[in-house]
Protein backbone atom coordinates (compact mmCIF):
# COMPACT_ATOMS: atom_id res chain seq x y z
CA UNK A 1 0.00 0.00 0.00
CA UNK A 2 3.00 2.24 0.37
CA UNK A 3 3.32 3.02 -3.39
CA UNK A 4 -0.33 4.12 -3.56
CA UNK A 5 0.16 6.30 -0.49
CA UNK A 6 3.23 7.77 -2.24
CA UNK A 7 1.17 8.50 -5.35
CA UNK A 8 -1.47 10.30 -3.30
CA UNK A 9 1.20 12.28 -1.43
CA UNK A 10 2.75 13.26 -4.79
CA UNK A 11 -0.61 14.48 -6.11
CA UNK A 12 -1.15 16.53 -2.94
CA UNK A 13 2.36 17.99 -3.20
CA UNK A 14 1.67 18.93 -6.82
CA UNK A 15 -1.54 20.66 -5.83
CA UNK A 16 0.14 22.49 -2.95
CA UNK A 17 3.24 23.62 -4.83
CA UNK A 18 1.77 25.21 -7.87
CA UNK A 19 4.82 25.02 -10.10
CA UNK A 20 4.12 26.79 -13.39
CA UNK A 21 5.30 24.98 -16.50
CA UNK A 22 6.20 27.23 -19.44
CA UNK A 23 4.09 26.27 -22.47
CA UNK A 24 7.25 25.50 -24.44
CA UNK A 25 8.16 22.68 -21.98
CA UNK A 26 4.72 21.08 -21.72
CA UNK A 27 5.59 18.71 -24.58
CA UNK A 28 8.76 17.49 -22.87
CA UNK A 29 7.14 16.99 -19.48
CA UNK A 30 4.26 15.21 -21.18
CA UNK A 31 6.47 12.63 -22.90
CA UNK A 32 8.53 12.29 -19.70
CA UNK A 33 5.36 11.44 -17.77
CA UNK A 34 4.38 8.91 -20.43
CA UNK A 35 7.78 7.27 -19.98
CA UNK A 36 7.36 7.38 -16.20
CA UNK A 37 3.94 5.77 -16.45
CA UNK A 38 5.42 3.08 -18.70
CA UNK A 39 8.17 2.42 -16.16
CA UNK A 40 5.67 2.32 -13.31
CA UNK A 41 3.44 -0.20 -15.05
CA UNK A 42 6.54 -2.16 -16.02
CA UNK A 43 7.44 -2.26 -12.32
CA UNK A 44 3.94 -3.38 -11.39
CA UNK A 45 4.09 -6.11 -14.00
CA UNK A 46 7.55 -7.21 -12.73
CA UNK A 47 6.28 -7.41 -9.19
CA UNK A 48 3.35 -9.54 -10.35
CA UNK A 49 5.77 -11.79 -12.24
CA UNK A 50 7.94 -11.89 -9.07
CA UNK A 51 10.91 -10.57 -11.04
CA UNK A 52 10.87 -7.08 -9.53
CA UNK A 53 14.25 -5.56 -8.87
CA UNK A 54 14.18 -2.17 -7.24
CA UNK A 55 17.54 -1.07 -8.68
CA UNK A 56 16.35 -1.89 -12.21
CA UNK A 57 13.07 -0.13 -11.55
CA UNK A 58 14.63 3.09 -10.23
CA UNK A 59 17.28 3.35 -12.97
CA UNK A 60 14.70 2.47 -15.63
CA UNK A 61 12.29 5.08 -14.36
CA UNK A 62 14.76 7.94 -14.41
CA UNK A 63 16.57 6.85 -17.58
CA UNK A 64 13.40 6.39 -19.60
CA UNK A 65 11.92 9.66 -18.36
CA UNK A 66 14.98 11.76 -19.10
CA UNK A 67 15.73 10.03 -22.40
CA UNK A 68 12.15 10.44 -23.62
CA UNK A 69 12.23 14.18 -22.95
CA UNK A 70 15.73 14.43 -24.43
CA UNK A 71 14.81 12.63 -27.65
CA UNK A 72 11.81 14.89 -28.19
CA UNK A 73 14.04 17.91 -27.50
CA UNK A 74 16.62 16.70 -30.02
CA UNK A 75 13.86 16.13 -32.55
CA UNK A 76 12.62 19.69 -32.08
CA UNK A 77 16.11 21.08 -32.45
CA UNK A 78 16.65 19.15 -35.68
CA UNK A 79 13.33 20.33 -37.05
CA UNK A 80 11.68 16.91 -36.83
CA UNK A 81 8.96 17.48 -34.27
CA UNK A 82 7.55 14.15 -35.50
CA UNK A 83 10.13 12.40 -33.35
CA UNK A 84 7.70 13.22 -30.55
CA UNK A 85 5.20 10.90 -32.19
CA UNK A 86 7.80 8.12 -32.44
CA UNK A 87 8.40 8.39 -28.67
CA UNK A 88 4.67 8.48 -27.96
CA UNK A 89 4.06 5.39 -30.10
CA UNK A 90 7.02 3.47 -28.60
CA UNK A 91 6.06 4.19 -25.00
CA UNK A 92 2.36 3.80 -25.75
CA UNK A 93 2.84 0.32 -27.21
CA UNK A 94 4.92 -0.75 -24.19
CA UNK A 95 2.35 0.75 -21.84
CA UNK A 96 -0.50 -1.18 -23.41
CA UNK A 97 1.48 -4.41 -23.42
CA UNK A 98 2.34 -4.01 -19.74
CA UNK A 99 -1.27 -3.17 -18.94
CA UNK A 100 -2.42 -6.26 -20.84
CA UNK A 101 -0.07 -8.51 -18.87
CA UNK A 102 -1.12 -6.91 -15.56
CA UNK A 103 -4.76 -7.45 -16.50
CA UNK A 104 -4.14 -11.15 -17.00
CA UNK A 105 -2.54 -11.47 -13.56
CA UNK A 106 -5.28 -9.59 -11.73
CA UNK A 107 -8.30 -11.14 -13.39
Amino acid sequence: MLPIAGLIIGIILGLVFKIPVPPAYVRYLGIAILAALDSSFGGLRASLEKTFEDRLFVTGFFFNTLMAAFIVYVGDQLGIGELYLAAVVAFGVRLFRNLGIIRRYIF
Partner: protein
Amino acid sequence: MLHFHAKRAQITTALICTLLGFFLVTQLRGQESYSRSLSEQSEQDLGQIIRDLNTETDTLSSETIDAQLRLYEYENERASRKTILNEAAKNLEDFKVLAGLTPVTGEGIEIVVIDKEHILNGSDLLAIIEELRAGGAEAIALNQKRVAAEAAFEKKKKNIYYNDTRMKDPFRIKAIGNPKVLYQAITLPGGIKDALSSLEGVSFTIKRKNDLKISAFKSKITYDYAKPVKESGQ
Protein backbone atom coordinates in the same frame (compact mmCIF):
# COMPACT_ATOMS: atom_id res chain seq x y z
CA MET B 1 -2.84 -8.34 -3.37
CA LEU B 2 0.55 -7.03 -4.46
CA HIS B 3 3.59 -8.88 -3.30
CA PHE B 4 6.82 -6.95 -3.05
CA HIS B 5 10.05 -8.71 -2.25
CA ALA B 6 11.38 -6.35 0.28
CA LYS B 7 10.44 -3.35 2.33
CA ARG B 8 13.17 -1.30 0.66
CA ALA B 9 11.64 -1.98 -2.72
CA GLN B 10 8.31 -0.77 -1.40
CA ILE B 11 9.85 2.46 -0.16
CA THR B 12 11.67 3.21 -3.42
CA THR B 13 8.56 2.42 -5.40
CA ALA B 14 6.56 4.68 -3.12
CA LEU B 15 9.05 7.50 -3.65
CA ILE B 16 8.90 7.07 -7.38
CA CYS B 17 5.12 7.05 -7.28
CA THR B 18 5.27 10.28 -5.30
CA LEU B 19 7.41 11.75 -8.04
CA LEU B 20 5.02 10.44 -10.70
CA GLY B 21 2.00 11.95 -8.96
CA PHE B 22 3.79 15.25 -8.56
CA PHE B 23 4.72 15.33 -12.25
CA LEU B 24 1.22 14.35 -13.30
CA VAL B 25 -0.42 17.19 -11.39
CA THR B 26 2.19 19.70 -12.55
CA GLN B 27 1.69 18.64 -16.15
CA LEU B 28 -2.08 18.87 -15.87
CA ARG B 29 -1.75 22.39 -14.54
CA GLY B 30 0.78 23.25 -17.23
CA GLN B 31 -1.55 21.87 -19.89
CA GLU B 32 -4.31 24.01 -18.44
CA SER B 33 -2.20 27.19 -18.64
CA TYR B 34 -0.98 26.15 -22.08
CA SER B 35 -4.55 25.89 -23.27
CA ARG B 36 -5.00 29.47 -22.16
CA SER B 37 -2.35 30.64 -24.62
CA LEU B 38 -3.47 31.77 -28.03
CA SER B 39 -3.14 28.59 -30.09
CA GLU B 40 -5.39 26.63 -27.74
CA GLN B 41 -8.02 29.33 -27.14
CA SER B 42 -11.63 28.44 -27.71
CA GLU B 43 -13.33 30.06 -30.67
CA GLN B 44 -15.34 32.24 -28.33
CA ASP B 45 -12.25 33.51 -26.55
CA LEU B 46 -10.46 34.10 -29.85
CA GLY B 47 -13.47 36.05 -31.06
CA GLN B 48 -13.35 38.13 -27.89
CA ILE B 49 -9.64 38.78 -28.42
CA ILE B 50 -10.29 39.85 -32.01
CA ARG B 51 -13.10 42.16 -30.86
CA ASP B 52 -10.83 43.70 -28.23
CA LEU B 53 -8.09 44.24 -30.80
CA ASN B 54 -10.57 45.73 -33.25
CA THR B 55 -11.79 48.14 -30.60
CA GLU B 56 -8.22 49.14 -29.90
CA THR B 57 -7.55 49.63 -33.60
CA ASP B 58 -10.69 51.77 -33.91
CA THR B 59 -9.64 53.90 -30.96
CA LEU B 60 -6.16 54.39 -32.37
CA SER B 61 -7.37 55.24 -35.86
CA SER B 62 -9.88 57.74 -34.48
CA GLU B 63 -7.01 59.29 -32.55
CA THR B 64 -5.06 59.50 -35.81
CA ILE B 65 -8.02 61.21 -37.48
CA ASP B 66 -8.25 63.67 -34.58
CA ALA B 67 -4.57 64.47 -34.88
CA GLN B 68 -4.86 64.96 -38.64
CA LEU B 69 -7.85 67.22 -38.11
CA ARG B 70 -5.90 69.33 -35.67
CA LEU B 71 -2.99 69.52 -38.09
CA TYR B 72 -5.41 70.60 -40.82
CA GLU B 73 -6.84 73.29 -38.52
CA TYR B 74 -3.39 74.61 -37.72
CA GLU B 75 -2.50 74.76 -41.40
CA ASN B 76 -5.78 76.51 -42.14
CA GLU B 77 -5.10 79.02 -39.41
CA ARG B 78 -1.64 79.64 -40.76
CA ALA B 79 -3.03 80.11 -44.28
CA SER B 80 -5.68 82.58 -43.07
CA ARG B 81 -3.05 84.50 -41.14
CA LYS B 82 -0.99 84.67 -44.28
CA THR B 83 -4.03 85.96 -46.16
CA ILE B 84 -4.62 88.64 -43.54
CA LEU B 85 -0.97 89.66 -43.70
CA ASN B 86 -1.09 89.85 -47.49
CA GLU B 87 -4.24 91.94 -47.31
CA ALA B 88 -2.65 94.25 -44.78
CA ALA B 89 0.43 94.59 -46.98
CA LYS B 90 -1.78 95.42 -49.96
CA ASN B 91 -3.74 97.97 -47.95
CA LEU B 92 -0.51 99.53 -46.81
CA GLU B 93 0.59 99.74 -50.43
CA ASP B 94 -2.70 101.40 -51.39
CA PHE B 95 -2.42 103.90 -48.55
CA LYS B 96 1.13 104.68 -49.55
CA VAL B 97 -0.01 105.41 -53.11
CA LEU B 98 -2.80 107.53 -51.73
CA ALA B 99 -0.39 109.43 -49.48
CA GLY B 100 2.06 109.78 -52.36
CA LEU B 101 4.81 107.86 -50.63
CA THR B 102 5.58 105.55 -53.56
CA PRO B 103 6.50 106.35 -57.14
CA VAL B 104 3.68 105.26 -59.45
CA THR B 105 3.13 104.75 -63.14
CA GLY B 106 0.06 104.38 -65.30
CA GLU B 107 -2.20 106.04 -67.82
CA GLY B 108 -3.70 109.46 -67.36
CA ILE B 109 -3.49 112.99 -68.70
CA GLU B 110 -0.91 115.72 -68.83
CA ILE B 111 -1.96 119.34 -68.67
CA VAL B 112 0.41 122.09 -69.68
CA VAL B 113 -0.68 125.52 -68.54
CA ILE B 114 1.16 128.48 -69.99
CA ASP B 115 0.80 131.71 -68.07
CA LYS B 116 2.66 134.44 -69.98
CA GLU B 117 1.50 137.34 -67.86
CA HIS B 118 1.98 135.66 -64.49
CA ILE B 119 -1.55 136.34 -63.53
CA LEU B 120 -2.40 132.90 -62.13
CA ASN B 121 -2.56 132.43 -58.38
CA GLY B 122 -1.77 129.40 -56.26
CA SER B 123 -5.49 128.98 -55.76
CA ASP B 124 -5.91 128.58 -59.54
CA LEU B 125 -3.44 125.70 -59.64
CA LEU B 126 -5.11 124.26 -56.59
CA ALA B 127 -8.43 124.52 -58.38
CA ILE B 128 -7.04 122.46 -61.28
CA ILE B 129 -5.75 119.89 -58.84
CA GLU B 130 -9.11 119.81 -57.08
CA GLU B 131 -10.84 119.18 -60.38
CA LEU B 132 -8.43 116.35 -61.14
CA ARG B 133 -9.10 114.85 -57.72
CA ALA B 134 -12.82 115.17 -58.31
CA GLY B 135 -12.21 113.30 -61.57
CA GLY B 136 -10.73 110.42 -59.62
CA ALA B 137 -7.03 111.11 -60.09
CA GLU B 138 -5.00 108.64 -58.10
CA ALA B 139 -1.69 110.47 -58.29
CA ILE B 140 -0.93 114.05 -59.30
CA ALA B 141 2.36 115.79 -59.93
CA LEU B 142 3.09 119.45 -60.60
CA ASN B 143 6.35 120.08 -62.47
CA GLN B 144 7.61 116.62 -61.41
CA LYS B 145 6.74 117.31 -57.77
CA ARG B 146 4.22 114.97 -56.26
CA VAL B 147 1.11 116.67 -55.03
CA ALA B 148 0.08 114.93 -51.86
CA ALA B 149 -2.23 115.79 -48.99
CA GLU B 150 0.19 118.45 -47.78
CA ALA B 151 -0.10 120.70 -50.78
CA ALA B 152 0.29 124.38 -50.04
CA PHE B 153 0.44 127.05 -52.74
CA GLU B 154 1.66 130.52 -52.21
CA LYS B 155 2.34 133.46 -54.53
CA LYS B 156 5.28 135.69 -53.83
CA LYS B 157 6.25 138.41 -56.30
CA LYS B 158 4.66 136.90 -59.42
CA ASN B 159 6.03 133.44 -58.68
CA ILE B 160 4.05 130.52 -57.38
CA TYR B 161 5.62 128.37 -54.71
CA TYR B 162 4.45 124.87 -54.03
CA ASN B 163 5.55 123.74 -50.56
CA ASP B 164 8.26 126.38 -50.61
CA THR B 165 9.58 125.28 -54.04
CA ARG B 166 9.29 127.77 -56.87
CA MET B 167 7.15 126.55 -59.76
CA LYS B 168 8.25 127.78 -63.12
CA ASP B 169 6.05 128.50 -66.08
CA PRO B 170 4.84 126.45 -67.93
CA PHE B 171 3.07 124.41 -65.30
CA ARG B 172 3.11 120.78 -66.19
CA ILE B 173 0.47 118.84 -64.30
CA LYS B 174 0.41 115.08 -64.55
CA ALA B 175 -2.51 113.05 -63.26
CA ILE B 176 -2.85 109.28 -63.23
CA GLY B 177 -6.41 108.00 -63.45
CA ASN B 178 -9.13 107.32 -66.00
CA PRO B 179 -7.98 109.63 -68.86
CA LYS B 180 -11.50 110.07 -70.22
CA VAL B 181 -12.96 111.10 -66.87
CA LEU B 182 -10.01 113.35 -66.06
CA TYR B 183 -10.26 115.05 -69.43
CA GLN B 184 -13.96 115.64 -68.93
CA ALA B 185 -13.37 117.00 -65.42
CA ILE B 186 -11.02 119.64 -66.77
CA THR B 187 -12.84 120.52 -70.00
CA LEU B 188 -16.30 120.63 -68.50
CA PRO B 189 -18.22 123.52 -70.14
CA GLY B 190 -17.97 126.43 -67.73
CA GLY B 191 -15.37 124.45 -65.83
CA ILE B 192 -11.84 125.20 -64.76
CA LYS B 193 -10.38 125.25 -68.27
CA ASP B 194 -12.98 127.66 -69.56
CA ALA B 195 -12.58 129.87 -66.53
CA LEU B 196 -8.77 130.06 -66.71
CA SER B 197 -8.45 130.16 -70.52
CA SER B 198 -10.47 133.33 -70.56
CA LEU B 199 -7.68 135.06 -68.65
CA GLU B 200 -5.08 136.97 -70.64
CA GLY B 201 -2.02 135.02 -71.74
CA VAL B 202 -3.24 131.73 -70.29
CA SER B 203 -3.42 128.68 -72.50
CA PHE B 204 -4.21 125.07 -71.81
CA THR B 205 -2.84 121.97 -73.53
CA ILE B 206 -4.29 118.63 -72.47
CA LYS B 207 -2.79 115.37 -73.64
CA ARG B 208 -3.76 111.84 -72.99
CA LYS B 209 -0.75 109.75 -71.88
CA ASN B 210 -0.34 105.98 -71.59
CA ASP B 211 2.72 105.71 -69.40
CA LEU B 212 2.97 108.56 -66.99
CA LYS B 213 5.58 108.29 -64.24
CA ILE B 214 5.09 110.15 -61.01
CA SER B 215 7.77 110.16 -58.33
CA ALA B 216 7.19 109.82 -54.61
CA PHE B 217 6.46 112.67 -52.26
CA LYS B 218 9.91 113.69 -51.04
CA SER B 219 9.35 115.87 -48.01
CA LYS B 220 9.12 114.19 -44.71
CA ILE B 221 5.68 114.18 -43.19
CA THR B 222 5.65 114.88 -39.49
CA TYR B 223 2.68 115.13 -37.25
CA ASP B 224 3.36 117.26 -34.21
CA TYR B 225 -0.18 118.00 -33.10
CA ALA B 226 -2.45 115.49 -34.75
CA LYS B 227 -2.57 112.19 -32.94
CA PRO B 228 -4.51 109.17 -34.12
CA VAL B 229 -7.69 108.54 -32.14
CA LYS B 230 -7.93 105.03 -30.81
CA GLU B 231 -11.30 103.58 -31.61
CA SER B 232 -13.10 102.20 -28.61
CA GLY B 233 -13.62 98.48 -28.45
CA GLN B 234 -10.41 97.72 -30.28
